[in-house]
């Protein structure tokens, strides 16, 4: 049971952060299908920092540098989307898909080259080991082993809620996702706001990526990417109706199902059912499809999302 709670907390932290990222981007008017790719870049940068840091580095140094690297890599990779979709009015779905493919291929190439260079040409794998880094993030509270990542996610969630509802900046950002022409007419720079939205999604997506790969694992194979976690976060975001507090709730719900697939053998009454773990893997997707079917009729997606802003258009 404790294991179930641990996994749920980790997945919930990942989904909350990445879905919040998606939310900021979509609220500014840009559909971010590339969250998956951003997570890969964030995770890769964070993992590389953990590998590179000297063995006597203090826990705090490891934590701070890893987080900085992950969020910075996420933001840089989100620029791929920002430049193409905001400046060049490219098809947002296509660019997002391209970023996902680009991320997996680039991460494989970079990690392989990184390993080859570090091992003098004996290690060609796309795998990074960061046992020490993984341990630095652990925090024991009684029997429960949680990670600094979860605390980070909670703090960022609170910040995001306050930011989203209480600041002028976020109000302006939301205006750009609903009616950019109106926002422009009162002097808001739509392009800048959309850049801010996409960069925020890069920040959150990158952090989500490092949590996904480092909170429960101490090695990661980068040729697999992040196995659809970014897409799951998009479903969480829609289920959460583009509102931070609802996103948090739906993330927890999704996380429970997701962790059931990992730990179903450990829970007595579930183990007795003899359902293969793969079936639990399908659960979150089936549930989200059904939930989306029930909620999408009156869904409140940002009105102008997916439409490139053209100053001249009426």
């Amino acid at each position, binding site marked *: 049971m404790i294991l179930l709670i641990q996994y749920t907390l980790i997945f919930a932290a990942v989904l909350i952060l990445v879905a919040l990222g998606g939310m900021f981007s979509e609220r500014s008017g840009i559909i971010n299908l590339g969250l998956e790719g951003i997570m890969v870049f964030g995770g890769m940068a964070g993992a590389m920092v953990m590998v590179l840091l000297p063995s006597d580095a203090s826990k705090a140094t490891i934590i701070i540098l890893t987080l900085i690297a992950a969020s910075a890599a996420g933001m840089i990779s989100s620029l791929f989307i920002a430049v193409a979709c905001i400046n*060049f009015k490219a098809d947002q779905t296509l660019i997002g898909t*391209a970023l996902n493919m*680009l991320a997996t*291929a680039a991460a494989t190439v970079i990690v392989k080259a990184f390993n080859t260079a570090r091992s003098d040409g004996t290690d*060609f794998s796309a795998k990074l080991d960061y046992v020490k880094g993984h341990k630095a993030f652990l925090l024991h509270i009684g029997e429960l082993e949680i990670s600094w990542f979860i605390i980070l996610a909670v703090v960022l969630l609170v910040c995001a809620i306050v930011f989203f509802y209480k600041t002028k900046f976020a109000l302006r950002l939301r205006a750009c996702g609903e009616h950019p022409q109106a926002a422009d007419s009162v002097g808001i720079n739509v392009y800048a706001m959309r850049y801010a939205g996409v960069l925020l999604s890069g920040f959150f997506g990158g952090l989500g990526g490092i949590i996904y790969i480092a909170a429960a694992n101490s090695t990661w194979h980068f*040729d697999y990417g992040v196995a659809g976690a970014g897409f799951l976060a998009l479903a969480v975001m829609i289920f959460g109706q583009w509102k931070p507090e609802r996103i948090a709730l739906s993330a927890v719900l999704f996380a429970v199902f997701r962790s059931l697939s990992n730990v179903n053998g450990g829970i007595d009454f579930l183990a007795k059912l003899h359902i293969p773990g793969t079936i639990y893997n399908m659960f979150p997707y*089936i549930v989200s*499809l059904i939930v989306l079917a029930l909620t999408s009729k009156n869904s409140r997606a940002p009105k102008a999302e997916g439409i490139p802003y053209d100053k001249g258009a009426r």
Partner: protein
Amino acid sequence: MEKKASFFRRSGVQTIIASIVCALLGIFVGFLILLAMNPSHAAEGMGAILRNFFKYDQSSTTLMYYFGSTLVKAVPLILCSEAILFAYKAGLFNIGVAGQYTVGLLASLYTAIALGWSWWLCVLAAIAAGALWGFISGFFKAMFNVNEVIAGIMMNWIGLYLTNIVLGSKKVMDQSTSKTYNILSKNPKALLPSFLSDVFGHNQYMTIALPITILVAIIILIVLNKTTFGYELKATGHNRDAATYAGMNATRNVILTLVISGAIAGFAASMFYLTGIEQYTLSSSVPGMGFNGIAVAFLGGLHPIGAIIAGLFIEYLTMGGQYLDTNYFNPQVADLMVAIIIYLCGFVLFFKHLMNKGKAKALTNVNDETNKPDSTTTEDKEV
């Protein structure tokens, strides 16, 4: 009348130029990456990718054999991109092609190995499976207004896990190698009939899949451009409300589009796996074929025939990765190049815009930049 015709030709030519620019830029960036990885062998590496199977130019049989392999592997890619562009023409971004391909793979391999059906039944099963997966996405889209991209993504993962469960069973998968059984040894009548395999250096994987693929592309071209049905689909894609107002059944059209798209994707899987060239291994991520199909569709200018050319080109590049000297580079560099080309495809609209702007400006004031695209258009036209 004449003016209109030349305008359309011009737009087509622009698409071709924009796609070629994307491809060249992608190759160039790929070269920069090779340079960054290993400066002294970069030119050699790029040469290996581009030279590809022409490396075997001493022996024409070997050369044709590897050429044949490239064709065989390009078939599913081309068909997947046909599936995507068909839906895209009707205003739907069918990202679920990846999952529809996966269940097509599931159906064709299960019927071939576990049930021992003959090839055409296996193909029909794959088509039905893909169509069913497309139907589910379309149903959610038309009835409940669920975004087809999100529904497609969900269906991709459900399809993948289902495939892993069914194909992982003892009947279909050799538990010692974790690969599905070879169709040739289990049920040779499930293999597609061969086609011109003698011409391609006795490549036993050369099957009727190749001519069928070209046929499918031509049928899609005709359906989209010459039939009322195709017109209705495109109209629904442009403006669903207007189509409904004009008396078209938009709900039916949305579902039907995704069913057909899914059927093509399922068909793609059967056209690849029933050649016996590859066995399925359990995978933790959705097969990339469907996603690569998106790339090919856009690179081919969303034209059914363009997709064939783009598909061959992308497969040629991907295969090129295997010719890289692994001492200096790893083969995924080719995948990276492909991904960059797709990313650049997003800029096609911008390139076209640039060319059109150039034309308008050229009327009033002539400058170098505007002249460039214009002169290339005329050149290409003559070709």
